[in-house]
């Protein structure tokens, strides 16, 4: 049974991530030609790059730097492709959906368990908009501080997986209490790499307000000491014709 919290059976250690031969020149030329004919409209809708951190929901000591590329559906809803770096060779490690407080509070309590709040990571300067002056970003930060996210991680690169293995992992957001606090070395590494000072960001964001999550099931681990893992389970498939 493949589970999101299980270490996968021996994955060829030491292989490049991901393994595989580099692109041949011939293929690159075909790709360019075909690419020009296709519109790729949905992926032109990504207009914000956010850099932050996420914690595995079943083991908060496992923490990763994340790069979200977000596309807006409306004022209350963003859909984001999440990568492990901002380089072109970055791995697609999952998807996060970001919704407003209004939308979140209407979700059934059972569904809310799968969501996390963003106020702490915005106010503490963990969440950054690379290259965008904080002043410009201010209104959006106000919105983000009042939003909630649902983040499924499909590729656990941080544990050395050279390919996406197992079930998706539910991710949680950094919080101001342990085990939800981001390790200083991880933060420093990100800050140095991206030319950011999260301390300065925190200072400039003092007036940003979060939301009251009392009575909700956001950040479930904080109130209940329980996280969530996913298991893949064999089952009877409902058929319309024989399979496979």
């Amino acid at each position, binding site marked *: 049974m493949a589970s999101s919290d299980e270490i996968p059976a021996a994955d060829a250690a030491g292989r490049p991530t991901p393994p595989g031969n580099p692109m041949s020149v011939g293929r690159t030329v075909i790709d360019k030609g075909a690419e020009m004919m296709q519109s790729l409209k949905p992926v032109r809708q990504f207009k914000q790059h956010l850099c932050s951190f996420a914690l595995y929901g079943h083991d908060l000591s496992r923490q990763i730097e994340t790069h979200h590329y977000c596309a807006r559906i409306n004022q209350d809803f963003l859909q984001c492709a999440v990568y492990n770096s901002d380089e072109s060779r970055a791995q697609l490690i999952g998807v996060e959906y970001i919704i407003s407080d209004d939308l979140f509070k209407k979700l059934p309590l059972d569904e809310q368990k799968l969501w996390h709040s963003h106020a702490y990571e915005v106010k503490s300067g963990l969440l950054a908009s690379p290259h965008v002056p904080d002043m410009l970003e201010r209104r959006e930060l106000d919105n983000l501080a009042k939003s909630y996210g649902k983040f499924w991680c499909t590729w656990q690169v941080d544990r050395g997986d050279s390919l996406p293995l197992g079930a998706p992992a539910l991710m949680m957001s950094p919080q101001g*209490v342990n085990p939800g606090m981001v390790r200083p070395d991880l933060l420093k590494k990100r800050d140095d790499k991206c030319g950011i000072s999260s301390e300065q960001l925190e200072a400039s964001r003092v007036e940003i307000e979060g939301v009251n999550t009392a009575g909700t099931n956001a950040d479930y681990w904080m109130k209940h000491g329980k996280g969530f893992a996913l298991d893949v389970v064999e089952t009877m*498939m409902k058929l319309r014709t024989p399979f496979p």
Partner: protein
Amino acid sequence: MASAQVDVPGNPTSTGTALLETATAAIQGFHPINKIHQHLCAFHFYGDDMTRQVEAHHFCSHQNEEMRQCLIYDGEELGAKLIGVEYLISEALFLALPDEEKPLWHSHEYEVKSGLLFMPRVPAAVQRKEMEQVSKTYGKTYHFWQVDRGDHLPLGLPQLMMAFTQDGQLRQDLATDVEKRYGVSFEEEREMRKHMTGPDQGIHPLANGAGKGQRLELREVDISLVA
């Protein structure tokens, strides 16, 4: 098309937000996104329910010759919903996977040879080389948003998705709808793709759920609140 049927609740984007995003889109870097260069249209069904079938638009980038990562949408227009991800790997990479992992991956041979999987708006002759390669790959797909059951938001657990492996599995109305919209004929393309072959070693018996249904279940685990 599924995209048109489900409205995401929420207020229209404010002018201020739209202006900000025009600015951020211009100032920031989008390197991983800019690498997405290919649109593939195909169909998935739910790993525990073949009767639930979804048109899936893949927007893919190559990590290298043998591995692709794709964002899956329910359509290709403005407002299309990001409903999942798929990873495509070569046969060689698939064979090296642990046996426990293999059932989570599906073969592409049938979809390609039947014409169901195609690159919209790319002339058949141009995409044929690409299809020859895809025919030999395996894919792993999770959907997070069940638009086919009318969910206005991405609710519930991820769903492991599977690909069609035989004639008769895909609903005819879904197929015809795609053919009409894209001006393609799966029958004609099937003829042109007759020469294509699947994985050199044949479809692995553990692929495609090892022939069984697969579903994801949530389990609670203890989190120690002590630092």
